[in-house]
C-alpha cells in the first residue's frame, strides 16, 4: 500500500513524462491484432516506480539512462497528468544513484491498470515491437516461453 506520507508533487507538471521499464515477460500477444500488448500487470504496483524525465534532463540525461544494464526490459512513458486522472499520486522518491526516481501511488484496479496501460507510449523502441521480435529476444536472453 502507499505510505500515508506520500503527497502529490505539483512540481511534476501534468505534461511531465514518466518512464517505466517493462520486462519482456510482461509483453504479450494480442490475438485480436497480432501485435504486442503490454500487460496491465506491469502497472499494478501500489507504488509504481518510474523515472521523471524533467529530472533526468536537469542532469543532462535522457530516456536511454533508464535502460542501462536492463537488457530484458523495454521502455514506455505516460504523462503525470494522465496518472492523476485515475486517482493516482505522483511524487518524487529519489534513490541512491537515481535522483529521477518517482512513484505513481494508488490502488490500481483492473480498470485503472488497463487505462494506464492504454495511455502508455512506446519510448524504446519508439514503436510497438513485433511480437516475434520479443519472442526472439526472450530466447536470446534465456527466457523462453
Amino acid at each position, binding site marked *: 500500500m502507499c505510505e500515508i506520507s506520500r503527497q502529490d508533487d505539483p512540481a511534476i507538471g501534468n505534461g511531465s513524462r514518466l518512464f517505466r*521499464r517493462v*520486462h519482456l*515477460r*510482461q509483453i*504479450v*500477444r*494480442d*490475438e*485480436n491484432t497480432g501485435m504486442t*500488448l503490454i*500487460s*496491465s*500487470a*506491469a502497472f*499494478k*504496483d501500489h507504488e509504481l*516506480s518510474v523515472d521523471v524525465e524533467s529530472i533526468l534532463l536537469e542532469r543532462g540525461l535522457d530516456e536511454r539512462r533508464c535502460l542501462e544494464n*536492463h537488457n530484458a*526490459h523495454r521502455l514506455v512513458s505516460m504523462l503525470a497528468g494522465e496518472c492523476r486522472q485515475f486517482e493516482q499520486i505522483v511524487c518524487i522518491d529519489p534513490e541512491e544513484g537515481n535522483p529521477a526516481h518517482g512513484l505513481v501511488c494508488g490502488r490500481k*484496479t*483492473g*480498470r485503472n*491498470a*488497463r487505462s494506464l496501460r492504454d495511455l502508455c507510449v512506446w519510448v524504446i523502441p519508439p514503436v510497438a515491437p513485433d511480437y516475434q521480435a520479443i519472442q526472439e529476444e526472450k530466447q536470446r536472453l534465456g*527466457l*523462453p*516461453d
Partner: protein
Amino acid sequence: MATFATQFPGSAAALSDRDVVAQTYWVGQSSTVIGGSRGSSNREFAVELPGGRRLVLTIPFELDPMPAWISPTVNACVRILELPANWDSYGGKRIRAELVAGALLILIRSMPIDLTAPSVVPLGDGGVQLEWHRRQQDLEITFSADESPQYYYRNRITDEELEGSPSSSSEFAQLLRNLA
C-alpha cells in the same frame, strides 16, 4: 522429503467436486516439469521449483483427453517461478508458488476444454496474472499477494467492462466460454 505442504485458495474443499488438488513440497534443486503421468483415477503434474520446492497438481481422469491449454500454461508458470528477486528491476518479488497453484486450480475448474492457453504474466508483488486478448475481448485474472483473486473483462466492441471474483461467479465462467 516433504517438510512443507500447503493448500491454496479455493483448493481441496471448494473443488472437491472435481478432486483437484495442489500441494507444494520442499525437495530437489532443479526446476523441471516432470508432469503428465497418469495414475489410476487421475494424472499428476509435478513441477520442481527453484529453491527446492515441488508443486504437485493432480487432475481428475475425467479431463481426458488432456486439454491442450494445460501443458503450455504449466510450462509458462514454471518460467515465471524461475524469475529471480528484482526481476522487474523495481524490487519485484519472486513469484509465489501458492499463488500460481491457486491460478491453475481456478483454470482447471473453469476453463472450457477448447479455450487457448492464457498468457501468464508475473506481478511485482509475487503474484501472477492470466490473460486472454481474443475475439475482441480482454479478460485478465489477477492473483495478487495481498488481495483475493479478481478478474477484469472488457468487450472492445461494446466497451462493456466487468470486474469480480473468479472463485464464485457464474458470470466469470460464461466470460471464459465466450472467449473459446
